[in-house]
Each structure stands twice: as C-alpha cells, then as structure tokens.
C-alpha cells in the first residue's frame, strides 16, 4: 500500500498504490502537475461483420468493438532505485511487461515495453495499444508528425478537405506517427516520442494511444493474401516511448532536441582492449 514515486531533479512520476499504474507526472523545473494514467489495452480484430465484410489485416485496422479491453487493471510493481536511474517494473500479463524509467539528469520519462508473443488460441486477432490518459481538455485536437518534419494538426472525425462521413470511430481517427504525437491545452503539452513508426490517435480528449504490436488471423483482402499471423509461438517486440510534459512555450524545443537524439542515437562499438598501431598502408 506504499505510494511509489520515482524522481530526479527535473521530473517526478507517481504511481497508484492500489493498481501499480502511473497516475501523475510532475515537471519540477516548470512547476507543472498532470494526472496521467498509462496502461496497455487490446482491440479485438474484426473478421468482418453485418455492416461490412472488411477484416482487420496487414493494410486495414478495423477493430470489432470500438472500446479496447484493458490488459490488466493492476500490476505488481517492483521499484529499483540506484544513483543513476530509478525504475518501476510492471508486469501486465505473461506476454506484456514494462519498465518505466527516469535517468539522472534527463527531462523525459522512458517507457520500455516488451509485448508478445500475442496469444491467439481463442481465435481472436489482437491489436495491442499503449494508452496515456491525461486530465487535459484538448477539444478534439491532437498532433502527429510527418517523417519527423512537419507537425500536422489532427481533428477527431474531421478531414480538412472534404466532408467526412465517419464510419470507423477508432480506425478512422488513426494516423501515422513517425517520431512523435502530442496533445495540449491552453497551458501545457504532453508529448510522446516513439522509437519507430507506429499508428496513433487520440480517441478521447486528453488521451494518446499508440499501437505497439498486432497479430491477426484473417487476410484483409487488400493484396497481401496472408493474415498478419506469425510462426508459432509468435514474435515479441520491445520498444520505447518517451514522455515529456512541458509548458507550451518550452515544449517544441524539448521534443525537437530529444527526438534528434533518438533518431540519430549514439552507436556503440565494442572491443576487447589494446590493439596494434594502425598504419594506413
């Protein structure tokens, strides 16, 4: 029942003692406090229904129900605190776990998730998302990038150049995320940087979700000719999301500089020690 907190000189993350899930992020440097919950959810992939025979597949994301199911309402957290890093380890299921990490001197909260192999023994294709729910009044707007260059404003159930008849409330609001997605209100901005291209959206005000893995049992009939299935026992993926909370006026500098460091990350080369002097000849 002890409250879990990880903190460095710039950020503090607090965890719900009852569920073990993230519940609040504080930017100590800028004096910001935001209630943020984060958990993993899964969409049941459509195999086609009475409205349309369209199945979810490699090309098409089409959930059977518009509300995703939470993977676990609580986790048994494990806290690791050292001089260089503070971590909370969370185990959502046998095939989904996460480390939430705060390094000394860093201004972002790192989520390292490990997902898979997705079980499909129940004959349900599954599409797994990591969802951040924050107390922000975002008025139906969110922002995604285009190849890390131009940030585009996305408005739920809206297209800027034609009158949209929205028939897919979830999939119809998903957009490509190449390096970042963010939401904001009049005071602060919540940004999530990704380490790879993913699908993402803000289905409700204050919410950000990113699809991290999917395993499907039916071809979507758009050309690939195969379901997005995997050889037994299936694949697992590991990736990272970086969460930044900033005032509006500092947010762009923060996420742009950090995203550069992610996209052009330092490379490691190892060697066993002493070598011989190099001669160009």
């Amino acid at each position, binding site marked *: 029942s002890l409250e879990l907190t990880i903190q460095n000189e710039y950020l503090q993350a607090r965890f719900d003692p009852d569920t073990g899930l993230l519940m609040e992020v504080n930017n100590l440097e800028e004096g910001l406090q935001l209630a943020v919950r984060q958990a993993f959810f899964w969409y049941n992939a459509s195999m086609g229904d009475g409205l349309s025979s369209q199945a979810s597949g*490699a090309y098409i994301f089409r959930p059977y129900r518009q509300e995703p199911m939470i993977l676990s309402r609580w986790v048994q957290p494990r806290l690791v605190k*050292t001089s*260089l890093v503070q971590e909370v380890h969370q185990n959502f299921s046998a095939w989904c*776990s996460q480390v939430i990490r705060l390094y000394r001197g860093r201004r972002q909260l790192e989520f390292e998730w490990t997902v898979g192999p997705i079980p499909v023994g129940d004959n349900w294709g599954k599409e797994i998302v990591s969802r951040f729910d924050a107390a922000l009044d975002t008025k139906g707007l969110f922002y995604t990038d285009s190849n890390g260059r131009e940030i585009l404003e996305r408005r739920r159930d809206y297209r800027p150049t034609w009158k949209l008849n929205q028939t897919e409330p979830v999939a119809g609001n998903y957009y490509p995320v190449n390096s970042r997605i963010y939401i904001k209100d009049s005071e602060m901005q919540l940004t999530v940087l990704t380490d790879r291209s993913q699908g993402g959206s803000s289905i409700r005000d204050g919410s950000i979700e990113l699809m991290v893995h999917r395993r499907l049992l039916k071809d979507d009939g758009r050309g690939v000719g195969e379901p997005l299935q995997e050889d037994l026992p299936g694949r697992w993926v590991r990736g990272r999301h970086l969460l930044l909370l900033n005032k509006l006026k500092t947010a762009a500098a923060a996420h742009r500089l950090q995203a*550069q460091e992610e996209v052009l990350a*330092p490379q490691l080369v*190892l060697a066993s020690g002493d070598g011989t002097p190099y001669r160009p000849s």
Partner: protein
Amino acid sequence: SGASASLNEAMAVLQHHDAVSGTSKQHVANDYARQLAEGWGPCEVLLSNALARLSGSKKDFTFCRELNISLCPFTQGAHSFEVTVYNPLGRKVERMVRLPVSKEAFLVKGPDGAVVPNNVVPNPSSEQLELLFPATVPALGFSVYSVSRVSPRRPTSLRRRPRAQEAE
C-alpha cells in the same frame, strides 16, 4: 575490406511501400531481413576500419546486434572491454549506456582516465543484469570508455560483527 554498397542496395529495395508499412508476404519480409543482414556485415568492417584509422589503433571491434533485447555475449563474458560511443549528431550529447553483463561490479573509466559512476541493474524482461553508465560524446565524434570487472564490495550487513555482539 569493408563496403557499404550492399547495405545501400538493401535500403534502396526496402523503400518499397510493402517493406515500410509491413504489408509484404512473409517470404518477402524474410528476404528483406536477409538483404539487410547481409548488407550490414561488410558495413561493420567498414566501420571498424574507420574507427581504427580515427583512433590510431587496430582492434577486433565487436558489434552487438541484439543489444535491444539485452543480449551481448561479448560484454556478458569479457573481463574487461572498451566501449566506443559514436555520436552522429552535430552537437555534443550525453547518453546513458546500457550493456548486458553477467557480474555485479565494474570499474568504468572515461576517455580522460577518470572514473565514471556506474550501476548494475536487473532487466526484468530478459532476466539479465545491465551495466549502466553516463557517456558524453562530442559532436560528430566518439568517446572511448574502458570497462573492467572488479570484486563486488561486501554489503555492510554481511560484515562480521564483534564476538560479544554476536553472542548477544
């Protein structure tokens, strides 16, 4: 001799929309992976040659391709090793280096020979230990850190107490 031509070619092939979006058939995805892996091999040699020339020392450079899943037989087995951190950005960066290891205590020294603080932390996903230390790398340059195993310090609670206290 190293070469980047085959990786260039593989990357060019992978500009196809099927490779970018993941909508290829499985056997095509397998072939994309094969082309990337075969292209990366000669590139490792090229990078080794470049690092040898820049550092003035020819070494058996090792690349751990599975660091993302906390696997590196080299760092997990070696008693001491060097870590070259290359920064492709045009400004100085500070980065926390994470390397899978099998022991609990290390001495890390920076490019100037000064001791760098480090921790060994468990990675719950892979049930591995990971060595953690901060690295500072100049713009478009590299820093070399040396890592060596040391005997773990005895935790305070395990120290022998005076006999009289034990009897109590």
